[in-house]
């Protein structure tokens, strides 16, 4: 295929990718209770409804999701740092097997992760709560964190750490003064990405959240009530805008990190 026909194809493909998201704001500002064409004229009442006092269930689910996503981001990034550092810097027995197990959730159907955790939590008497959701989310976010952090740690010339050690710094100070600042952009994008994944995750939260729903679980319950759908559209619009902002921040951090390490940009974060 020639460059031009490929370019046309690429733009059509982008339209396909963005079509659903482009519809969100259209219906969020549409003054009609049915999510269908033709449009009924503009309104902002679905957004006011979102913030109305009677939407307490929604507000609680947002708070639940923020708590879950924040804690998940911190723990999965910490685990990711350990694994990525170990995998890029050291050689140890059964390395491929160990890393394979840790990365497995990346390719496992989420429902399998969800039901296997459900069985365990129900049968060891732990019950289910937001904490069990967090445990599940840390499991599926860690592989993404490792993928991001791996490239940060790989870009780090081992001689740089040796140089700091050679110039008189202890192992810990070398980590603090050299390693950490250089991988910091990777750590921040890892935090942001795992936060976003956790915020959006439905299946595991659906199985493991118990009486406190996260935002996606709450959304799922609302999709059954047609009169609630315009509000869901408004909420979706806000979420999309927020996600895009977080992603731009993550991408900026990643590029900043590459520039600081004096490296050429080689692609996106996955």
């Amino acid at each position: 295929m020639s460059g031009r026909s490929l370019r046309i194809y690429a733009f059509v493909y982008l339209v396909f990718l963005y079509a659903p998201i482009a519809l969100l704001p259209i219906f969020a500002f549409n003054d009609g209770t049915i999510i269908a064409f033709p449009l009924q004229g503009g309104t902002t009442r679905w957004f006011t409804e979102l913030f109305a006092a009677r939407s307490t269930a929604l507000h609680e689910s947002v708070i639940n999701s923020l708590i879950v996503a924040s804690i998940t981001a911190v723990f999965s990034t910490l685990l990711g740092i350990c694994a990525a550092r170990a995998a890029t810097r050291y050689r140890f027995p059964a390395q491929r097997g160990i890393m394979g197990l840790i990365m497995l959730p990346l390719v496992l159907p989420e429902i399998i992760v969800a039901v296997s955790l459900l069985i365990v939590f129900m049968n060891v008497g732990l019950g289910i709560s937001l904490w069990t959701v967090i445990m599940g989310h840390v499991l599926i976010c860690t592989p993404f964190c490792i993928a991001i952090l791996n490239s940060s740690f790989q870009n780090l010339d081992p001689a740089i750490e040796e140089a700091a050690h050679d110039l008189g710094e202890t192992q810990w100070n070398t980590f603090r003064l050299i390693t950490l600042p250089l991988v910091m952009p990777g750590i921040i994008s890892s935090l942001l990405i795992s936060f976003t994944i956790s915020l959006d995750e439905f299946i595991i939260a659906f199985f493991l959240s118990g009486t406190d729903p996260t935002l996606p679980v709450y959304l799922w319950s609302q999709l059954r009530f047609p009169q609630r759908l315009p509000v869901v559209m408004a909420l979706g619009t806000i979420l999309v805008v927020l996600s895009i902002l977080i992603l731009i921040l993550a991408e900026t951090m990643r590029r900043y990190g590459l520039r600081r390490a004096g490296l050429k940009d080689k692609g996106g974060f996955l």
Partner: protein
Amino acid sequence: MPSDTHTIKGLKLVSPPLLYAVLLLAGPLGMILLFSFLPQPDNPTEATFTLSNYAEAFNDPIYPELLRRSLLISGAVTVVTVLLAFPIAYFISFHVSPRHKSLWLFLITIPFWTSYLIRVFLWKVILGFNGVVNSSLMGLGLIETPLQFILYNPTAVVITLAHAFAPFAILPIFVALEKIDRSLLEASRDLGENRLTTFIRVTLPLAMPGVLASILIVFIPTVGDYVTPEQVGGPGGTMIANMIQLQFMRLDNQPMGATLSVLTMASVTVIALILLVLNRPFLRTQR
């Protein structure tokens, strides 16, 4: 180069994530396997372990049918997604200037990070009775009455999943294409191949590991997808995950749910292994 202290440091460092994966992944997966051999709650028998769940899963026509349909739908999703994704990955790798590559990748990943539930729901809006497709076609005068065959069936599931997993398919192929030394393509042209034959004889074989990664990374998770069939699948588009959910959350039948989970994992694993074996010649060319 490894020495003993080096190895120990590495093991120490990897132990927290490893311990976590053992406790919350390997352990629970083992539990599922164990539960699939337990008697069902409404059918108490004397035996502690039983194969009756597996017998039921194979004899009751609904389970094999659902599993077969899940694999077929996932297969279709995979083929569609990877075929649509390859030209995009090729375009970004070979026709986009290096400065703009990461912008394109960024544009492609953005939709993936927006709420999955809402994206799936919006496909319902697009494909629905009064949806975007129907109202546009009617507005253009191409059809008189709304098309009804595009929602609540396996086709809708395939379209929706192909959309959801697009970036997953593009990125591995892109990475494989980026790794190809451009002088190999020049060498092929120099040795008398034209652009098409160069693509077939050099580019495609070297991109195969990436294509295979895309296939697996799309196929495996989609087999167990729950949201899309539930939203846009209708009765004919129900998949195995919906049945697993039903067993666990509605029927409270953990042993049967576990059995179906084990069977799903087993069939996915078998298919993945077959794909890997078939592609061995391509994988061996890469160190």
